[in-house]
């Protein structure tokens, strides 16, 4: 059975389309990523799937249940970690966990094995109020609370936004362990580097899904020729590249990336020549393989 099926799901707010006929499926035990910027419609998708928001059009099922008719069953079998910290700030770590266990008719002991790895890091602070925890710790507690009733599907809405790269890496390690326990995970993030950690990703922009693919296939399907270039003055480099016909250039780490339109003949020598003709000698140019970020930029252009 599919963990999630969204079928042409749509939502409007005051005549403005937030989610526009979105369709996708999440397999059991899969980590499925919704990748896109703020305002793309990710949170509305999450809220419809967790039965907190009624769709205007389209249908969706979670664990085989309909999001409109079977909301009670869905709420009992999914865990949801909203983008905003949503625990009780004036309850302690332990009290929060106890509370969520009780609400779902279970106990901390019953499903402790699911949260053990994460909870041991929180245990030294179990008597601290949730509001006094650091960002990384809050995030770990929220994940524990979303897991304590042993959900079949986990919904994580931007769990790593504003979190530093080290804590972000640790968080993704935790998600991979949960996947091993056959929990299906729908996760959203604005960080492109996290996309490669998902089994499949949907790129979302303006309420629409631009593409759905495994990260590797997304890269394989990138059809443009792509070069990287480097020069002593990055500002000038990007300015000069703007006038290289048939290409789009953008900053990429220490390099500029040059994406060549289909059918346009281009090679290293041509680019070097263009740079030299515009006063940038001793530049470095090479052909390079696309990353997920290049794919996304290409879809946005």
């Amino acid at each position: 059975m599919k963990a999630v099926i969204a079928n042409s799901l749509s939502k409007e707010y005051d005549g403005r389309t937030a989610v526009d006929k979105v369709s996708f499926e999440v397999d059991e035990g899969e980590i499925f990523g919704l990748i896109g910027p703020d305002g793309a419609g990710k949170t509305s998708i999450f809220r419809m799937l967790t039965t907190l928001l009624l769709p205007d059009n389209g249908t969706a099922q979670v664990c085989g249940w309909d999001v409109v008719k079977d909301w009670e069953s869905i709420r009992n079998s999914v865990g949801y970690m909203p983008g905003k910290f949503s625990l009780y700030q004036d309850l302690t770590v332990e009290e929060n966990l106890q509370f969520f266990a009780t609400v779902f008719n279970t106990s901390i002991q019953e499903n402790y094995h699911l949260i053990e790895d994460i909870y041991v890091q929180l245990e030294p602070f179990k008597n601290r109020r949730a509001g006094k925890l650091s960002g990384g710790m809050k995030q770990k507690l929220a994940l524990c609370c979303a897991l304590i009733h042993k959900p079949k599907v986990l919904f994580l809405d931007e769990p790593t936004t504003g979190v530093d790269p080290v804590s972000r890496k640790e968080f993704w390690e935790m998600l991979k362990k949960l996947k091993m326990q056959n929990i299906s995970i729908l996760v959203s993030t604005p960080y492109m580097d996290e996309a490669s950690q998902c089994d499949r990703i949907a790129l979302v922009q303006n309420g629409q899904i631009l593409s759905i693919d495994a990260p590797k296939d997304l890269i394989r399907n990138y059809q443009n020729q792509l070069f990287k270039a480097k020069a002593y003055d990055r500002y000038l480099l990007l300015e000069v590249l703007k006038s290289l016909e048939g290409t789009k250039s953008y900053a990429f780490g220490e390099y500029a990336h040059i994406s060549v339109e289909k059918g346009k003949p281009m090679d290293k020598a041509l680019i070097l020549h263009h740079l030299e003709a515009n006063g940038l000698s001793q530049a470095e140019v090479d052909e390079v393989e696309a990353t997920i970020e290049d794919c996304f930029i290409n879809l946005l252009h």
Partner: protein
Amino acid sequence: MEEIVIQADKLTKKFGDFIATNAITFQVHKGEIFGFLGANGAGKTTAMRMLCGLSIPSSGDAKVAGFDVYKETESIKKNIGYMSQKFSLYEDLTVVENIRFFGGIYGLSDNEIKAKTEELVKRLGLTSVRKKLVVDLPLGWKQKLSFSIAIIHQPRIVFLDEPTGGVDPLTRRQFWELIYEAAHNGITVFVTTHYMDEAEYCDRLSIMVDGMIKALDSPKNLKEQFQVTSMDQVFYKLARQATRSE
């Protein structure tokens, strides 16, 4: 010789027993894009508040745009720009009203404000939305407008505190093009970010761990020093040593 616009010397801030910023020493040159990195809780915000004249240090010295962070905080505030994701524009004012408001705050004359308004609206492609409330603009446009307003008074230095969170990769790059342009025109850029590819865009960067600066160099030299291929790995190697969090 390169002109120095920020000079910090053993700059320290304590809150009770807790040393938030521990004797940091560094210089930033004119027109440089300086990245200020560190894990959550490493002490970046505290350091930045001292440099902006918003918090008096416990010990150490610093000069920003030539002004002393103990005695000349008002002069510092007049000579810097500041933008963060949390605070930037007034959402219930229009594009043009925001420009006029901040222009006034920074002491520009009416004529200067008028000229700047036209220039900004045109350059950022905001002509069709000039009378729209900022709350209705896409996040990427807001950020570009916000940055342009932060440098409307031609400050010596602009401080950017995680300016690009949550926008798409294309908008993020357009934003960085504005940063390059500002730096090219001699404005020094001091920026914090959690995006490691943006760290690569900086001329030099420092990485703070537990209140101290543990590394300071160009992205290229840092990668060589730590024998890795990306800034992400440099950051990971350093920040993993941290013993404290936020």
